[in-house]
């Protein structure tokens, strides 16, 4: 086993913890909507996407057609295409088959960690980075769908913030060093508040809001600032 595989595994731990919480709530939600435990677990193990699975369970609960479910899944998850494109520039040269494998593990959090690393990422690091969250996502779903009532509400609530806490830990150290990144964040946050609190714009689904705001923000930033060259983004403290 390569060293980089283990450093990927380790970097995946915070994602894993956050996923356990989110997928627990998915498991509870699915069972509450009348979806069998086995289906909930199968969905998690084949999709590994929060918003997409919630949408699918909602629609399946309402006996929607496969076309509807397929379209909704595409819309909610289309942001992964953007992330996949960015990662195509970020990964080291690797075979067709390896890229096919890694593609299955592109989530918001995995993408974020991989794309903000200072150097190119290889297959073994990515594999490690994907495995831990995948285990967490599956395990959380099983827990949520079966033994959810054992967790105190206060703990579930506190763990609900962990994924966001991780996001903060990724961006703040870079924003501290690179003013353009700080400005990019401020633009993104302002736009996302605008979309959230303006009644006409709030009709846009969460998936689309992320895409639209991201494209506007990154275009603006690319016009206004040149990135600090040689991509010397601060390595996230381990």
């Amino acid at each position, binding site marked *: 086993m390569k060293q980089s595989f283990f450093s990927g595994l380790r*970097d995946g731990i*915070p994602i894993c*913890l956050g996923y356990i919480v989110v997928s627990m709530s998915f498991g509870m939600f699915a069972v509450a909507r009348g979806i069998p435990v086995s*289906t909930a677990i*199968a*969905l998690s193990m*084949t999709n590994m*996407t929060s918003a*997409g699975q919630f949408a699918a369970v909602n629609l*399946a609960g309402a*006996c929607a057609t*496969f076309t509807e*479910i*397929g379209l909704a*899944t595409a819309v909610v*998850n289309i*942001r*992964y*295409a953007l*992330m*996949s*494109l*960015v990662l*195509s*520039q970020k990964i080291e040269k690797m075979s067709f088959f390896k890229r096919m494998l890694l593609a*299955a593990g592109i989530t918001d959090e995995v*993408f*974020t960690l991989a*794309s*903000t690393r200072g150097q190119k990422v290889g297959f073994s690091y990515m594999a490690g980075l994907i495995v831990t969250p995948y285990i967490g996502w599956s395990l959380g779903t099983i827990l949520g769908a079966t033994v959810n009532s054992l967790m105190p*509400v206060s703990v579930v*609530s*506190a763990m609900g*913030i*962990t994924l*966001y*806490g*991780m*996001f*903060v*830990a*990724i*961006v703040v*150290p870079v924003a501290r060093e690179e003013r353009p*990144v700080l400005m*990019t964040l401020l633009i*993104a946050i302002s*736009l996302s*508040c605008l979309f959230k*609190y303006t009644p006409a714009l709030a009709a846009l689904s969460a998936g689309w809001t*992320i895409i639209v705001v991201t494209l506007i*923000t*990154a*275009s603006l*930033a*690319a*016009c206004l600032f040149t*990135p600090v060259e040689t*991509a010397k983004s601060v390595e*996230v403290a381990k």
Partner: protein
Amino acid sequence: MSYLTGVILVTSLVTYLVRMLPIVFFKRELSSQWLKAFMYYIPYAVLGTMTFPAILESTRSTLSAGSGFLVAIILAYFNRGLLLTALGAAAAVFVVEYFTI
């Protein structure tokens, strides 16, 4: 094939294709400076959008979520790492909710 099996097949296939097509078929290195900059800023744009204001609704009260957010920013500013920052935020939420809910 049962309806639920179909749901699993459709969702997993669509989700996989969305993730797989760009990374597998887009191989050449981008040459445009603007596109490179655009790609460089995308993760930060995504993270900013996903984190705020959504973080404020991630716990049982805006007060506890706001406190967790603040603690996360402080820990992150001093480079405390992903795990410690995430757990610090969760601890802040737990403590604030213990006294206020």
